[in-house]
């Protein structure tokens, strides 16, 4: 079960991105349908197609996830980024209404849920995930926020430019492992 994290500056330029494969088991029930599906339907769009054909999306997500991990590749990456970008509009709408930092489930795209976290400095942290894990995700966002603050205080870092620090990367990964 994978998670995709994107950090965006107030002007929506990408600052950082991470893909995390969780070893935690998803809470969705195991599917009997998935074994009947042909193994070549591995792209994320397969989820859309089968959803349209009426099959339950929970079971699809489990199989499709397994498939997309095997295939990996650029095709899925583009879909993920498309989903993330599409959610930005929704996030901005919610931003104006709510003042809370953590917004859960801002947007949903088939099996992918988008959760967002807006910092007081208008940095957007976007997480694409498949399973429901509000507490874990909230803790993860808070951790990332603290790590982000520390990186901002490094005099060698220029604001709103991509974060290249290895220390930041390592710690975000560790935090992802802990909470996701």
């Amino acid at each position, binding site marked *: 079960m994978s998670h995709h994290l994107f950090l965006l500056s107030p002007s929506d330029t990408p600052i950082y991105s991470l893909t995390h494969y969780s070893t935690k088991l998803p809470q969705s029930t195991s599917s009997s349908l998935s074994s009947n599906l042909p193994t070549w339907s591995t792209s994320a769009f397969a989820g859309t197609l089968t959803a349209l054909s009426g099959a339950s999306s929970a079971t699809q997500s489990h199989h499709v996830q397994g498939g997309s991990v095997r295939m990996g590749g650029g095709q899925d990456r583009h879909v993920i980024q498309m989903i993330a970008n599409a959610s930005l509009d929704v996030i901005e709408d919610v931003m104006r209404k709510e003042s809370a930092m953590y917004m859960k489930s801002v947007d949903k795209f088939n099996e992918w849920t988008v959760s967002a976290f807006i910092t007081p400095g208008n940095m957007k942290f976007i997480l694409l995930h498949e399973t429901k894990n509000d507490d874990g995700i909230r803790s993860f966002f808070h951790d990332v926020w603290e790590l982000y603050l*520390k990186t901002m*205080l*490094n*005099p*060698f870092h220029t604001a709103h430019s991509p974060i290249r*620090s290895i*220390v930041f990367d390592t710690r975000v990964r560790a935090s992802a492992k802990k909470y996701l």
Partner: protein
Amino acid sequence: MMATTSKQYKAIGEDLWKSRTDKINSELFALTYGALVVQLIQDYEDYAEVNKQLEKMGYNIGTRLIEDFLARSSLGRCSDFREVGEVVAKVGFKSFLNITPTVTHSGAPPPSSRPTSAAKQSGVPGSTFILTLDENPLAEFVELPDEALEGGLWFSNVLCGVLRGSLEMVQMQVQVEFLSDVLRGDESTEIRVTLLKYLEEEVPVGDD
């Protein structure tokens, strides 16, 4: 004995730090120093030159800081170079930066550690002491980029200048340099101070 004096120095340092009412936020201090270093890097584009400039800045600070330090601490002359190291670490660093580096002395031991007369100092040129800093308020939050690591930047080099400047004003010519820095991935942060020679008080030459 040495141990008691060491405790006394620690107490003096602690008192001096506490008696200063005008303290500033350490984040602001670290950010200001960091901005300074980054600006120097942009201006000079040569890490060896930046090291030199930081040291020069430190030297200017040190030559003036010593007066303030001596006035507040009202410590007399150090009897030997070993004592210099103790005072620098336990009173100097403590009262200005609120850290107490550990001191390791080496070099020929002085023939006598008891001050015989006020004017005469004992201590052999070539004596050194090493200050090991287990924390460094200047380098809070800093991560050196690869170019700085390769270029040999000593981020806190201003400290070397401060030591050189202040000791020169009390008649000691010293060489001060960083040996290692945790910012560079080393195990510890160490500054070595080497006594080059004692400066004789010079009689001003009359012009007429």
